[in-house]
């Protein structure tokens, strides 16, 4: 009986989505195309992103839309498959003729989308914190980047815990480039990387790694392991009483490991973030209340979901200032350097040279009961690295991704 | 008469067991040569050595004057051997006609192929069943089909391993007549057989194997008259 009812519900849900899909979009609406995984391995992270976008769209539409035009959100689920990202990016741009494309989780999905967007004049907004370095005029990045996260956290860790660091990183571009950043910063501080271990995605057994760490005797560990399988490291390390301080650019505010694991697995974890649910400013509190009212089952509002929310407001600001949805007009607004919005974390602005976003960064630490404390407030930090190495999108569109060991040719 | 096939001290051991040891046989062009002997005498093993699915542990095999000891089976077939295995092995899921076709296409051009196909199907009395999958034929028919496939290769020497196994007496007799007819048209044949009545029907020369060795050889009359042969067959050959 119950089964049947859920089948019915399922069928009606199907027909509703079909109806929505078929409903003619009013000529006046602004179409936002959204690509977020809500199936597959990354559904855990994709769902809050979808929720964030939906919340922002609902709020803006209630308040009268963008320049009086309602927003129509078209979401497709690429199921974590890069080929699907490409298919759907094309579909959204060419068939649904969206005005802006938002989304993508992994760097690979972003790189899958970029070549397609480069052949159109539609804006693309990437809403994750990532390894940094993309210099592309067609893309805005609104997540935090290494100069906002590593250049703040690593000096703190070195000063507080010591100069010997051990790195465990996911063995793909994000982990490897993040490790490059760490190497450079630690070296500048006079510290040493006593061990670096790259772990293939999907690995979930860490006995050997834990022994290696014990042998190397580091002062602290940089954990940039990725994905649910690799997160098993924390419980296994806690069970082996490793008990070392840890730092990361993705733990706590992104993966909310302190909510998913039983204490004290995440004890002594440190991270620098533009958003985490424990921020308690009035703006943040109001935002959290709205979110939980709409999505009461959400375990944690992570920074990705928050960024996805903010991205829609940033887009609204850009279109209203440009009085146009055309990429060229929007880029004129960005070039003024005054493309700012008041977000729940505080004011965020888009940097004209790199089209990345400034953030107010805070250093947080997790205690043995998994409570999160703010240890330090860095204030607003600009995304300065790309412009330092010579990326200037106001003059030249490189369409490339740079890393500390792969700099633009002078 | 020219020898078409000759084995010289061919042996095959499995583990420590000698299945065939130091066997010399020769087959003359144009004859029907029967290989007989009790179960386990090594007849089928010898056949596999001749066609090449086993490589001998010692000795050599020559065919049409060429040493083929180390040749792979398909190379021996290309040089003019063909075989019908002990248990019928036809392409069970393919139609009867295609079975013949696959064997024929080897050396016959497209133009003549259809005619030859019909001729063989008629000869083998399989024409009415030509579109059936080979696996649907009766056991006896499958044997005939396999003989037909071996024949389709236009071989210089046909090796038939128990061509009448599982056949009714009537089918066995007709198979014997078919073999005699083919021989009359010039085909050389080496045949392993149990059924002594059948051997008597067709054989010209006979080699008897026992415990992996050649036990006796000679014209069919001599062999049948040899009391030692009768002995190893435990009286089986004493017909009246």
């Amino acid at each position: 009986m119950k089964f049947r009812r859920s089948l019915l519900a399922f069928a009606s849900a199907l027909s509703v989505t079909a109806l929505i899909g078929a409903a003619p979009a009013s000529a006046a609406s602004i179409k936002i195309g959204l690509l977020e995984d809500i199936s597959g391995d990354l559904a855990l992270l994709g769902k809050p992103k979808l929720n964030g976008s939906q919340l922002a769209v609902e709020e803006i539409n209630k308040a009268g839309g963008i320049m009086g035009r309602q927003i129509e959100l078209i979401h497709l689920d690429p199921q974590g498959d890069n080929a699907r990202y490409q298919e759907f990016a094309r579909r959204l741009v060419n068939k649904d003729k969206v005005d802006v494309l938002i989304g993508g989780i992994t760097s690979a999905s972003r790189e899958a989308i970029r070549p397609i967007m480069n052949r159109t004049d539609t804006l693309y907004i990437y809403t994750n914190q990532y390894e940094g370095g993309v210099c592309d005029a067609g893309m805005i990045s609104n997540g935090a980047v290494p100069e906002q996260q590593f250049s703040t956290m690593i000096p703190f860790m070195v000063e507080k815990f010591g100069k010997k660091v051990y790195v465990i990183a996911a063995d793909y571009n994000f982990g490897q480039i993040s490790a490059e950043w760490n190497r450079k910063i630690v070296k500048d501080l006079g510290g040493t990387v006593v061990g670096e271990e790259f772990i293939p995605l999907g690995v979930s057994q860490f006995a050997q790694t834990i022994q290696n760490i014990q042998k190397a005797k580091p002062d602290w560990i940089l954990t940039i392991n990725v994905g649910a399988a690799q997160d098993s490291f924390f419980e296994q390390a806690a069970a082996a009483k490793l008990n070392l301080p840890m730092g990361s650019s993705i733990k706590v505010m992104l993966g909310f490991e302190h909510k998913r694991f039983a204490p004290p697995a995440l004890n002594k974890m440190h991270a620098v973030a533009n958003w985490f649910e424990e921020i308690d400013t009035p703006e943040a509190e109001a935002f959290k209340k709205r979110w939980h009212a709409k999505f009461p089952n959400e375990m944690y509002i992570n920074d990705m979901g928050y960024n996805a929310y903010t991205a829609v407001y940033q887009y609204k600001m850009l279109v209203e200032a440009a009085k146009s949805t055309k990429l060229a007009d929007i880029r004129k607004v960005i070039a003024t350097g005054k493309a700012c919005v008041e977000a729940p974390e505080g004011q965020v602005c888009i940097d004209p040279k790199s089209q990345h976003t400034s953030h107010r960064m805070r250093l947080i630490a997790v205690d043995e009961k998994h409570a999160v404390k703010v240890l330090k407030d860095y204030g607003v930090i600009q995304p300065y690295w790309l412009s330092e190495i010579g990326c200037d999108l106001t003059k030249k569109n490189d369409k490339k991704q740079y890393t500390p060991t792969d700099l633009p040719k002078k | 008469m020219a020898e078409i096939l000759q084995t010289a001290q061919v042996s095959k051991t499995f583990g420590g067991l000698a299945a065939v040891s130091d066997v010399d046989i020769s087959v003359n062009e144009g004859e029907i040569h029967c290989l007989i002997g009790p179960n386990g005498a090594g007849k089928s093993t010898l056949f596999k050595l001749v066609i090449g699915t086993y490589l001998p542990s010692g000795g050599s095999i020559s065919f049409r004057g060429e040493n083929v000891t180390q040749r792979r089976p398909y190379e021996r077939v290309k040089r003019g051997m063909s075989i019908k295995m002990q248990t019928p092995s036809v392409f069970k899921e393919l139609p009867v006609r295609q079975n013949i076709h696959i064997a024929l296409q080897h050396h016959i051009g497209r133009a003549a192929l259809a005619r030859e196909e019909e001729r063989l199907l008629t000869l083998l009395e399989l024409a009415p069943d030509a579109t059936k999958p080979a696996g649907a034929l009766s056991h006896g028919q499958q044997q005939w089909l396999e003989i037909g496939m071996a024949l389709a290769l236009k071989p210089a020497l046909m090796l038939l391993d128990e061509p009448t196994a599982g056949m009714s007496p009537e089918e066995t007799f007709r198979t014997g007549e078919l073999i005699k007819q083919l021989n009359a048209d010039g085909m050389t044949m080496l045949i392993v057989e149990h059924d002594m009545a059948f051997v008597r029907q067709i054989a010209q020369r006979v080699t008897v194997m026992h415990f992996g060795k050649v036990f006796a050889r000679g014209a069919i009359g001599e062999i049948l008259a040899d009391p030692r042969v009768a002995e190893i067959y435990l009286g089986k050959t004493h017909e009246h």
Partner: protein
Amino acid sequence: MFKLLNGPQTLGNGRAFWICFFLVLIIALAYPFFADSYDVGNFAYFLIWVFMALGLCLMWGYGGMLSFGQTFFFGIAGYSYGVLAINLGGGGMTFVALGLAILLAALSALILGYFMIWGRVGGVFFGIVTLSATLVLAFFVGQTAGPEWRVGEARLNGYNGMKGMEPLNIPWFGGESIYFEGSSLYYLAIALILLVYLGLRVLLNSRFGNVIVAIREDPQRAELLGYDVRKYQLITFVIGSALAGLSGALYTSWGQFITPSSIGLPAAAMPIVWVAFSGRGDITATLIGTFLILVAFQTITVHSQQAALILMGAMLLATVMLAPQGFVIGVARSIGRLVKRRGQAPG
């Protein structure tokens, strides 16, 4: 030559079949004139994958060799196309890159195939070895993120994928280039499909086709009819794998992008799913079925959000349980039966 288009190895030999065939072809050729340009490009994209399925159908359905490694050759050709197109420069050289990429895929098939077939690897193990090969390649490419992994100008770029190659294009009069995207890619794909499909029909109904089905049925018997089984198996494997290579190179050209996830596990299982769903016994069924399943999966994913994977799974389950020879062959057989019954009714 044309006689060989029909024969025992392919379904659909009657006049009715060829009339349908030409009708479908005409509709396909006319399609871009009345369809949305996006849909045309999307169809072209589906067609790109069909080559890989046809190759697998040849190896598995006809030759009895289940290769789990179509993505291995897909990846080799896909990455080769990228590396070559970047290094040779764009323009007409992209077609040289396409040709060389397929050649490289065929060459690696020759080596891997030689190793397996001469090593008497058969049955399930054939699948396992090819699967291992494709996984090894995926792991290997996945860890090439560093700048040291470059071939000439082309960076492999690890898990994030290689990009920056030009799509297939030829210089045209007046300095303009024709880029194979959208409808021009569609026509290129249709032309290639036509070529490959008819070519495979001829191949399968020829001497060669007879031999490979014979080998599938009973390799020993085939050898005893005088065929060098290993050689025929190797040729089949190389042709099938080269077709996967064609898919790979076209895919890279289509998206100007390729990642190791096109080589790794879920991707490696897809061709098998398509071919098994369609009916591995026949190339026409594989052609139609693969196209249909690609369209269906995409449509489901677009319209049903989170339920998509459930629907796809249920579809697979239902197919294997209700139509064991494959969906398309099952449907074709029942149509055939229906037509026959009609034909007999008056008589």
